[in-house]
């Protein structure tokens, strides 16, 4: 064992979200020989979004496996490997392609443990770049996390900072269950403080990003980032928003939401997936069913994706999902109605 110099421990430096994910994979592979990555163009190419980068040079083609374009097959291969003692990390090029792999994720990975009476486990991580804003249009821009949040047996995680990306990914790799890890394409270049040492963030714990007293804004993925920026605009107008980054939708930390709503009495939920039958509906219903309902002074408001496939034109694309100004306007509207 090498003794690490004291100043290395807990040393923090700036990394991008993509670098943080790569660092988590590298550290997990160094620590555990059963961890490996498979996916399309993740080797020499370095991944469709450059996330795996140089990992093939560090760990070789046997542990950073380039696969054919066969999402159902590679998802199944990951399930079979996970079932027999390995800890695969499957990268899909775009989260939209999970539709091709859904059979293995929904019918197999999610159900194997229960169907087999608790006598098997599938420690699998599926990493997926998701979300709109890159001009990739309808088949490369979706936010499908709510689909999988509906499936018992899966965990569904959405990091919104480099720090969370590393900590949640290391927790996902350790997890004995299948974890769907939705990365946001627009966050890959975002920089933030990330400790060098490996650390884990408990899956299923939301985080209060900003304390406030007037309105609670719950955001997922990039919408937590936009909610935080919106909160600064609102502060300039004398409104103190409390911003919660949900971080995972299954399991969902409703307690942190209830606690905040009891304090602020107003709730806005912001998410990129299509508004109808989405994460916002679940959170709204959970609050309505809880004692936090009694504390509400205004109707709950949902901001979600429009009821359209994602369009190509940048103006249309922006209009299709909530933006910072939409969140500001929604909060002002909610408070104005409330005061009337």
């Amino acid at each position, binding site marked *: 064992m090498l003794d690490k110099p004291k100043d290395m421990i807990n040393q923090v430096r700036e990394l991008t979200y993509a670098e943080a994910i790569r660092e988590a994979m590298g550290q997990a592979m160094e620590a555990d020989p*059963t961890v*490996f990555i498979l996916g399309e163009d993740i080797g020499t190419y370095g991944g469709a979004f450059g996330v795996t980068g140089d990992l093939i040079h560090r760990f070789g083609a*046997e*542990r950073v496996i380039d*696969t*054919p374009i*066969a999402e*159902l*097959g*590679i*998802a*199944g*291969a*990951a*399930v*079979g*490997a*996970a*079932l*027999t*003692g*390995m800890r*695969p990390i499957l990268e899909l090029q775009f989260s939209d392609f999970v539709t091709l792999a859904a*059979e*293995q994720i929904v*019918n*197999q990975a999610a159900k*194997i*443990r*229960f*169907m*087999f*009476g*608790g*006598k*098997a*486990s599938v*420690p699998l991580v599926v990493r997926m770049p998701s979300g709109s804003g890159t001009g990739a249009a309808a088949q490369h821009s979706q936010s499908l996390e709510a689909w999988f949040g509906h499936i*018992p*047996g899966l*965990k569904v995680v959405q990091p919104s900072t480099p720090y969370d990306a590393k900590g949640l990914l290391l927790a996902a790799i350790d997890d*004995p*269950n299948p974890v769907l890890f939705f990365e946001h394409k627009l966050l890959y270049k975002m920089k933030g403080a990330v400790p060098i040492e490996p650390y884990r963030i408990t899956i299923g714990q939301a985080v209060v990003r900003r304390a406030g007293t007037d309105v609670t804004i719950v955001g997922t993925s990039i919408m937590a980032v936009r909610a935080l920026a919106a909160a600064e605009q609102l502060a300039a107008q004398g409104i103190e928003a409390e911003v919660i980054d949900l971080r995972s939708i299954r399991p969902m930390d409703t307690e942190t939401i209830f606690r905040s709503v009891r304090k602020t009495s107003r709730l806005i939920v912001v998410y990129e997936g299509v508004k109808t039958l989405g994460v916002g509906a679940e959170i709204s219903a959970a609050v309505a069913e809880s004692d936090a309902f009694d504390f509400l002074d205004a109707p709950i408001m949902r901001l979600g994706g429009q009821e359209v496939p994602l369009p190509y034109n940048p103006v249309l694309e922006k209009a299709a999902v909530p933006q910072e100004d939409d969140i500001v306007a929604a909060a002002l509207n909610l408070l104005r109605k409330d005061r009337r």
Partner: protein
Amino acid sequence: MSSSVEALRPNQRPELANLSDDTILESYRAMKLIRRFEERAEESYMRGFIHGTMHLSIGQEASAVGVVVALRASDTLTSTHRGHGHSIAKGADPALMFAEFFGKQTGYCGGRGGSMHIADVESGNLGANGIVGGGLPIAVGAALSAKMRKSDQVCVCFFGDGASNEGAFHEALNMASIWRLPVVFVCENNKYGMSMDIARSSAVPDIAQRAVSYAMPGISVDGNDVAAVRAVAETAIARARAGEGPSLIECKTYRIRGHSKSDRNFYRTKEEIEEWRGRCPIERLRNEVLGLGRLSADRFDAIDAAIEVEMEVAIEFAKASPNPDPARLTEDVYA
């Protein structure tokens, strides 16, 4: 030593001559156990002890046994919705299978899975599968895992003629071949995907022909001849274990019963069913061995009698077992 002497005996098929007496009796016992297990399961279903549905493999026992008996205990397999035979051949305890069929807490899956999801991962049975073609990519993953862990394990992937038309078949066989994985694909071609005749559903008459596309050996074998199946399986398993890559074996067979309990056999003739009933793999092995003057009838009769007792005890165990507690319904969704 003895097998080489037997090989020199006249009038013995080489496949059968290569099998020792013990192997013959072991194969017979496994096939008969599967047959009687399924007949008793069917009877229990009729008497109301089993709800839901089940897919019986009566008539197909030789493909399960011929392949699995050639495996090592440490090897793995993936199975299908018609998978009782694969599990039993792999050594599953019929009592725990009956208990599962009866929905009992003592069953293989604690009553959570039923007939279509029998699994025993610890013993290498990676599970029956309710999705046609579902096990194909999983077998590739198990073989990839075996190769990465250098465990010397081979994975056998059972699937039906119906599954060979799924995209998963193509993706799985191609991956297994490019990575030279230790997996043996065994297509149990029982002629029908539910009601669809293979002649109507496949562009080629033999599923084994498709192996050409994946640069792997493909062979069709009489799936009702346990010795022939075993001979082919041994070659494919040895090849897989030696790192020479996957093979595709097509066992041509027939399911005597319908697809499931809802099948009224509108799509095939009584004559066809009767013709295949005459090719019963269990009777065939017994008669052929007796005809060659190897082994005596009482060796087979003793096995039959022991199986009857085992079935009786197993069913009583299942009947007497407790139902699962609804208060524990949501346990085991997550590890």
